[in-house]
């Protein structure tokens, strides 16, 4: 075997192990509210925002709202971060975060636009 191939192989094997670890750690499964309440890791839930429950705290930079899934189950979400551009008027959202003491803490929201507009590219 040539030297460069040995080095290449070592880099690849070492890296694969490393990347697999990073992959497992950051996997955020899409799960139901019920499952989310039972887990302490970062997960992804999907539902509709109950418009009447949205509360903004501009000083703290947070948004609180109730997320309702298709079975009618409700999850209180506390989102901290930049308010997504099309947050108002959004109904369907994917929320990524973790559940703790009755509240789903999130730092990332994915908004589904009601329109059929396509994205950037």
């Amino acid at each position, binding site marked *: 075997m*040539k030297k460069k191939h040995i080095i290449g192989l070592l880099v690849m094997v070492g890296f694969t192990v490393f990347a697999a670890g990073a992959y497992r750690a950051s*996997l955020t499964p899409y799960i139901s509210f019920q499952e989310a309440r039972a887990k302490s890791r970062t997960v992804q839930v999907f539902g509709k925002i109950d418009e009447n429950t949205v509360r*903004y705290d501009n000083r703290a930079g947070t948004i609180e709202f109730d997320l309702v899934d298709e079975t009618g189950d409700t999850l209180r979400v506390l989102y901290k971060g930049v308010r*997504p551009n099309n947050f108002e008027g959004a109904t369907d959202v994917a929320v990524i975060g973790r559940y703790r003491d009755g509240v789903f803490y999130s730092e990332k929201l994915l908004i589904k636009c009601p329109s059929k507009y396509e994205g950037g590219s």
Partner: protein
Amino acid sequence: MIGETSIYLAFVAALVALICFIAAALGNRGMLSLARGAFRVMSAAIVFASVYLLFLLLTHQFQYIYVYSHTDRALPTPYLISAFWAGQEGTFLFWALCSALAGLLLLGREDKYEPWVMGFATVASTFLIVLMLVASPFATFDQAPYDGAGLNPLLFDPWMIIHPPVVFVGYAALVFPAAFAFAALAVRDYDGWVQRALPWTLFGWLALGAGIIIGGYWAYKVLGWGGYWGWDPVENASLVPWLTGTALLHGMLIQKARGSFKKANLLLSIITYVLIIYATYLTRSGVLADFSVHSFSEAGVNAYLGLFLLFFLFVPVALLLYRWKEIPSPQIEEGVLSRNFAFYATVLLTCLSAIVVSVGTSSPIITGLMGNASSVDSSYYVTSNAPLVLLLALTLAACPLMAWRGNQGVALKQKLMIPGAISLLVTAVAVILGVRRVFDAVFVLLSVLALSSNLWALLLAAKRGIKMIGGYLAHVGLAVMFIGILGSSGYSTSQNLVIEPGKPAEAFGYSFEFKGMVKPTPAKEALWLLVKGKGREVMAHPEFYVVEKSGQLMRSPHIIRGLFYDLYVSPLDVREPEGGDLFVLSRGSQQEAYGHSITFTGFDRTPHADGSSVRVAAILEVEWPEGRTTARPSVVSAGGNWVQEPAVLDSGITIWLEGIDADGGRVLFRVWDEEPGAGVAFIEVSKKPLVNVLWAGTVLLLGGTAVATWRRSEEKARAKMAKQEHPNRTVRVKKRKK
């Protein structure tokens, strides 16, 4: 009708061209002129269809669904043109147009390669035409609506006019490396194709890179979340072929110089094009719709896209495997400290990065097969790419210091002295300025080393002619980008500010004073902020606007650009002045405030004509010593947001409706006897270091690639001339023996 007919004509011509190119490729050279003719007819039909679509867009022919969906009468002309590629059907037409025009450049050239290359390219064009037959840009309504639905307001940006076409020009150009690889396998010439395909690889890589960068620039400027890259599936989908394209580019350069990498280059050419189709599949088919901020349209093209993908994966790869054993793999053993090894490392690292990003992007599909579809968050991409980028920076720094065949230790040390000293100095400064993590410090060290060593190599190369600096210039740009990316993504800080009237708020050594609201256009409202600090005084006007057609409230940031950092001002909210007194009233009850007697008599609920918003007013009978009136303070819902509209009375008091309990028949309102002032503004200010350094780096990278494309195109033309002058001598890539 005319549009559809021209697409059918293009389809028939494409089939004829395809059959004739295959016949010519299999030895019947007489079919070649017929094939070329049919290809020209196909191209003409596609050009005609494109011009016709443009005409429909410019003349507001709303009976065409595509025109209706992406434009309206109020749209300025540049955006009417850009609506061509605003939707799926139009992008396929535009892609087909670029492919056809690029194909015309190759017709009648490329000798024995021509029928194979053009046949391959014609298959690609045929697939695009089939997609248009399935989802036609010329589909019509029975009756023409008076006005269109309009363009997505997020796309109202000059960068968005050019972003999609630049990406698709890249996609169209990158079919040719794959076509030449296929032709090379067919004619069993495993070296000659590289010189022919290299300019196309460079050009396609340049266009795709420019498209990706423009997309990032647009995201930073318009989307308002403060970043230029979010590891969104749509972004990743275009990044992956660009990464394998990077590997291909470097692989081709090694093959030209040293004769190695023959198999890898054939494979990379094919894979890059397959990944482009896969990118189209991911972004157009809706498989990732639940995992992306982008919305997707589904138009029933999935099966065809899948077929497209499988064809370009299996046919060339099958041919590659069939030829595998006869492709020579020259054994070149060179030290680790050689330029040869640096290229090898580049190919390896960019391929690994491409794999990591595709695994992450495809994660919902992969995990979906095992049951529970999951996506990965952006930390995965950052963590897994970090070591790769670090090694890439090391390679970038080392490459210009070494010769192809390896260095003597002494020469390397001498060359390392000055760049090494510079980078140590800069790293020390960076640590003093606040770079704390060890990884970051090493990354700064390597990036600056890469910058200085490539700059030095560039100056040496410039003596041999300006054409020779392309690669070094691109690498200087990449090193500059590395520094910019680290600064802007790793060291960005932000603060939420509440700015009350007359009380400027402080952040990052600047003061922000809220002067009121302004209307830059009738449909938009902007905060009017006076920003002072560091000897500068700037007006900032981050905007709010409601998109009438969808009812979304949008925010666009104001960016105060600086050499060392950008201040990124995002509007969060604005509230009318607080003060006065709060009261709760039930229906029929009365309250005394500021010498006025206020009675709440009932609600007045008026839905807006189109049902998208509703106004709720509280009806208040107000009496004061000098007069009486009926006040109607109200709230209006606009896309889920409630906007207050206070009632201003002649007597000098203002009443805001603060809350409604419709079931209980109660209202909460605020009475105040002061003039309504500027109110309270809520903003988020972020300090983003070195963003301009990043943009400068991208310009250098693209500029350097453009120079390299120019050089390699001239080389190709010269090789062709030489061959014409000496038809009996085959021009071959020089092969050095060990």
